[in-house]
């Protein structure tokens, strides 16, 4: 009961809703019926915005307005939105249309319908046909069952469609397509009258048509058979002739039987085709050309170096230097890819193999292992034994070494003991195990071979291994230097290997060196903070400093390794107090290194001069009368260690001959006897003087040369006697004296400041009429402000219109209500009046 009533109410409501819609749609139709052209031409509709003046090239959108149209549009919109909201105001319940996609404005109506249909079908299907496998519902086309229509197909003979090319007629199409039924009905309706007398002729026509086509078909079949026969015949004939015409055919069955005959020739041809043609090789260079090339390369590198020295940034170009193998003979021979190809050639040609083995010396992987005849030495050498091929070995070895018979037999023997491949060491102890117990020469060979057998191009991880190995080698060198006695010969031998590895991996080398200096600098700083002074760096640090100078350019304005190294040297020279002859020697080694570092760039190293002056001060006998010069820390004017280099007797000086000090003297000096001590002192002093000489030459162009060398000059001229230091002093005096006159005069500076220009700055304004701002930001701000204002105004206007609209609606509502009430009242009054009238009439009747 309640359901029914609700439904009826719903229906009623829908109807109610539809009624005004219909009304509106009628009004809209009226308006829409008027074309826009019509409206625009109606002078009552159009409002023309008068322009004060025309501007050329400007298009204005708003010169013509259609106030009526836009007002009605706005009104309609309000009715759809605002009015609905107003009507719904204060109501909590509302109707929701649950049909699919009813409120989806994005969806096209066709889609909606389709989807709804699909949903409907699904619903039906789900319930009823859950177990129904095959009995689908009938498919229809234009309301007719497709199954029915299939019967039409039998009527038309369509086994050969190509024959009916020209026969497309209304009948045919009608019979072929399902829509024919409707079409026919239509035509039937139209030709109702004709059909009666033409029905027969039509039947006849069809029969005729069928006959015709059948006949044609037969004819064609005959023709086809004939042509096929002909071609078969021709083929057979051709086959019989073919054998005569062509001698050799590419047919496989025939090639197979002929193969043994042709093999040699074939091989030769193919070999000729695929074999490498003689490439035009570069012509052999004459020695002059070679020298020139070398010079050019060096010049380029030199210019790079100079540029870096001036502190300019260098591009990548300088990095193109190719890796040079340790065994490179510098003969320009490069093993390229073509040679590798010959290596992999399958033919067992002895001559070729010999060549390839010879090549092996110039950078090929040396896989071959030599036969080991000294079995008792095996244990000593820890090495990897790869696959051994004893039969081949002897031949290989003789082949390898036969071209280089000039090498001394002894050396050959020494080399012959070493294996040819090594695994790259994984840790520092591995490397130590590898190298321990070998002679320095052999150590070098081992490193070189390890490097080659783990060349970066051979396997993926090799690069990293070798990079690590560089760090281990550095560590090893440091350890060699710290042993007592230091094994500097071994270090010396390893230098070329270090250099070549550094050339291969500059970044890794740089990192390794940097970490060494970082550690050293850090420990020095820590000791300094605690004690205030540090001992001189040990021999390993000195070696590292020297190696740095060998591996990296010391003349760069700023270099990630050499700049810290120089700082380290200067720090050591200023903070390490000199307490013994060993300290003096260490200091002098550092000075030598410092001089080497700045030789090329001629940079000023104040600590160097200070230290040299201090060292000379140590040789001054009478320290009381100083005053014309000052000593810079770490040296003190007087003190217990300030007489280290004072020479006691002049006799020993006469017998003294210059010998170079061993580097190990930085650690311990044999100073048993007095003469040897004097000898050592004399060597130190002479070294110091030589360094002073070099410094004089280096710095003679500096503007304050005299000031820098004043302490040394006074020391030499006034405090050190020429008798004890015979001819050295003379040389120095001359150098010092000659340089006195040098003094740069002027310090020019200040670039001329350009005069202020007083001409007005003219800015071309290209966009007239647009709002001008100084920059983009201001313009953007201005634009946004303008937009905001406009929007604000628009919104305000809209709100006003909304309120007006609502007010109007309310008014109409009130009016409607009032009129309704009036009507009802009038009705009531009317009915009352009639009642009254009736009553009166009745009364009158009664009274009558």
């Amino acid at each position, binding site marked *: 009961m309640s359901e029914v009533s609700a439904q009826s109410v719903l229906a009623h409501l829908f109807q109610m809703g539809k009624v005004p819609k219909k009304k509106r749609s009628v009004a809209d139709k009226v308006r829409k019926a008027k074309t826009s052209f019509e409206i625009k031409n109606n002078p009552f509709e159009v409002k023309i915005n008068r322009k004060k003046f025309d501007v050329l090239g400007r298009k204005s959108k708003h010169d013509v307005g259609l106030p009526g149209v836009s007002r009605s549009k706005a009104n309609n919109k309000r009715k759809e939105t605002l009015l609905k909201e107003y009507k719904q105001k204060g109501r909590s319940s509302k109707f929701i249309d649950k049909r699919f996609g009813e409120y989806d404005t994005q969806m096209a109506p066709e889609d909606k319908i389709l989807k709804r249909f699909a949903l409907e079908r699904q619903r039906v299907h789900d319930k009823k046909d859950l177990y129904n496998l095959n009995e689908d519902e009938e498919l229809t086309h234009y309301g007719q069952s497709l199954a029915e229509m299939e019967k039409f197909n039998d009527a038309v003979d369509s086994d050969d469609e190509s024959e009916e090319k020209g026969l497309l007629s209304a009948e045919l199409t009608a019979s072929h397509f399902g829509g024919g039924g409707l079409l026919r009905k239509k035509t039937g309706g139209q030709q109702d009258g004709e059909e009666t007398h033409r029905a027969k002729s039509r039947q006849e026509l069809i029969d005729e048509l069928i006959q015709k086509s059948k006949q044609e078909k037969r004819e064609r079949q005959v023709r086809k058979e004939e042509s096929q026969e002909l071609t078969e015949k021709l083929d057979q004939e051709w086959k019989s002739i073919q054998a005569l015409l062509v001698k050799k055919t590419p047919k496989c069955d025939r090639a197979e039987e002929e193969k043994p005959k042709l093999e040699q020739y074939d091989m030769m041809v193919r070999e000729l085709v695929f074999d490498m043609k003689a490439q035009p090789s570069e012509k052999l260079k004459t020695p002059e050309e070679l020298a020139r090339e070398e010079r050019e390369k*060096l010049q380029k590198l030199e210019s790079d170096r100079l540029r870096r020295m001036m*502190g300019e940034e260098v591009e*990548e170009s300088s*990095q193109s230097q190719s890796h*040079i193998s340790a065994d490179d003979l510098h003969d320009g021979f490069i093993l390229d890819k073509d040679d590798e190809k010959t290596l992999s050639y399958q033919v067992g040609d002895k001559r070729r193999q010999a060549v390839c083995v010879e090549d092996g010396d110039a950078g090929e992987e040396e896989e071959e292992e030599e036969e080991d005849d000294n079995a008792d030495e095996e244990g000593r050498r820890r090495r990897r034994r790869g696959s051994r091929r004893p039969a081949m070995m002897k031949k290989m070895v003789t082949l390898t070494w036969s071209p280089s018979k000039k090498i001394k037999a002894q050396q050959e023997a020494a080399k012959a003991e070493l294996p040819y491949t090594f695994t790259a060491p994984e840790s520092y102890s591995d490397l130590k195990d590898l190298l321990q117990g070998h002679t320095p020469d052999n150590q070098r060979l081992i490193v070189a071979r390890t490097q080659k057998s783990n060349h970066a191009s051979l396997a993926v991880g090799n690069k990293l291994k070798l990079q690590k190995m560089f760090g281990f080698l550095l560590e090893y060198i440091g350890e060699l230097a710290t042993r007592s006695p230091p094994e500097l*010969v071994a270090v*010396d031998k390893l*230098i*070329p290997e270090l*250099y070549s590895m550094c050339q291969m991996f*500059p970044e890794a080398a*740089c990192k390794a060196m940097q970490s060494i200096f*970082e550690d050293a*600098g850090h420990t020095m*700083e820590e000791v300094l903070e605690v004690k205030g002074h540090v001992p001189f760096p040990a021999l390993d640090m000195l070696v590292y400093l*020297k*190696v740095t*100078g*060998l591996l*990296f*350019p*010391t003349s760069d*304005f*700023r*270099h990630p390794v050499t*700049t*810290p190294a120089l*700082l*380290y040297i200067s*720090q050591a020279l200023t903070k390490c107090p000199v307490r013994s002859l060993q300290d003096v020697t260490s200091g*002098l080694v550092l000075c*030598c*290194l410092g001089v*080497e*570092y*700045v*030789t*090329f760039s*001629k*940079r*000023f190293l*104040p600590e160097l*001069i200070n230290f040299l002056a201090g060292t000379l001060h140590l040789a001054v006998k009478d320290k009381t009368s100083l005053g014309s010069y*000052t000593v810079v820390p770490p040296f003190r004017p007087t003190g217990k260690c300030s007489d280290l280099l004072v020479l006691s007797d002049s006799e020993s000086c006469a017998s003294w001959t210059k010998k170079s*000090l061993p*580097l*190990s003297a930085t650690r311990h000096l044999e100073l048993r006897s007095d003469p040897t001590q004097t000898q050592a002192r004399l060597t130190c002093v002479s*070294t110091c003087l*030589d360094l002073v000489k070099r410094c004089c030459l280096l710095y003679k162009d*500096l*503007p*304050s040369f005299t000031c*820098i060398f004043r302490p040394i000059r006074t020391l030499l001229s006034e405090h050190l006697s020429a008798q004890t230091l015979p001819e050295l002093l003379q040389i120095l005096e001359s150098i010092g004296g000659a340089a006195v006159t040098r*003094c*740069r005069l*002027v*310090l*020019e*500076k200040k*670039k001329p400041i350009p005069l202020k220009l007083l001409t007005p700055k003219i800015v071309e304004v290209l966009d007239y009429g647009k709002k001008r701002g100084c920059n983009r930001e201001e313009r953007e701000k201005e634009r946004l402000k303008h937009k905001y204002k406009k929007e604000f105004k628009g919104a305000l206007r809209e709100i006003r219109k909304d309120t007006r609209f609502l007010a109007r609606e309310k008014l109409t509502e009130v009016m409607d209500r009032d009129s309704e009430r009036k009507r009802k009242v009038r009705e009531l009054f009317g009915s009352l009046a009639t009642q009254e009238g009736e009553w009166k009439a009745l009364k009158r009747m009664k009274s009558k």
Partner: protein
Amino acid sequence: MLTCDTVHVSFILYVILQSEKEKDVVNAVNACSKLFSTLLEKKDLFLGKLPTGEEEEAFIGLSAEEKYRLFMRQRYSSCVEMLLEHLDHELYSVKESALCCLMKFAEGEGRHPLEDLDWSEHYSFPRELLQGVVDRLLSRTTENSMLISRFQEFLEMEDVRYYVMSSIRENVGKVLAKNKGVGEPFMFNNVFSLMSNISIPSQESGLTNFMIKQEGESCLLSEHKRAFEKMWLGFLKYKLPSNMYKKILVILHDSILPHMSKPTLMIDFLTAAYDVGGAISLLALNGLFVLIHQHNLDYPDFYKKLYNLLEPSVFHVKYRARFFHLANLFLSSSHLPLYLVAAFAKRLARLALTAPPTALLIVLPFICNLIRRHPSCRVLVHKPKSVEDPYLMEEEDPAQCRALESSLWEIKTLQSHYHPDVAKAAGSINTPLSGLEDDISELLEKTTYELMERDLKQTRKTVPLEFETATQLLKGGGDVLGQHFCLG
């Protein structure tokens, strides 16, 4: 019952206190502290002065109660003596526990005085006990800095600090007068570490933390200041070793001068130190600056002396940063005569020829700042006609050294310094200086390692390499090393 126990316990404790074992001693000290503090609280110790003479005699004619008290008091005083001796013990843990125990006793005695309050002495503070502690702390034979830093905790309390100050003064006066002004280094160190730990709150309201409730002079800030001042002056009037001078001068401006009631009393000390020369003069500068700046000290020839302080060693001493900070302050005045500024600039430049890179990075901006402040000094960097250098390095008077006639060739020289930063800083002299001064305060504390780190941490894409093939260790780079040294 209880009394009997305490007597036994006190005896046993006294014995254990003399034991050799560290653990026993520490435990005994702790037990002592507990026992006697409760006794002090209960007022179970004899009041008044301890009778001298034989122990047995003292007990004659006393009631049992009084006997007990007297006996305990004797134990107490012998225990205190033991503890004071333990302050010289070689083990720190023993020393520490003894010190804490003694301070606890001091607190107890302060709360519950052992003697009747004599109202003429309007304070009740165990001065004798504290004096004993201070005497032991300022030992002549051992270094007590650890214990003193432990003692600092008690110095937080205003009254303790006040009495410690007077005790120090007495102790120092006594000891040094006895030795005719020659003290042992240990004692100086102890005195210094104790005295430098003393700091006085800056406001009267800061005096709140008392161990024992006090009234009278120890509550007044001015009294505290006066005691502080007396203590320091009493110490400083003796001849001190030079490293002690340095230590004092380092903290003088910061932790001594502000706490004195009359800082001007330090003038004599400071001027004497300033005249010593070398590092001590450099350090005295700071105190002098405070006096000149805040206390209206007029120091004749101040700048001349400052000028003469500039020696090559200035760049190498530990107090380099402090010196340049102050020199920057002194020379920041724009009313200095031109010749003076020029003399400073020239002298600094000349000295820069021997300076390490870290110092150069301070000095070069310093000189640039001088030229900026005094634009007439620009002649130093721009003089198209001069040839000779007329500057007299040996002249002591900046007015006579003819710096204005010279030019800063030294900076030109430093443009070819080996360190890139220095070379760049020196290069700035070539261009017209910008208006803003360089801030040198960041550069003052830079160390060589920091300079090294800058290059070490930098990651560059490519590392330039030496292209001359290295063959031997001693070859390459001009063969300087190979010429003078050989392998082996």
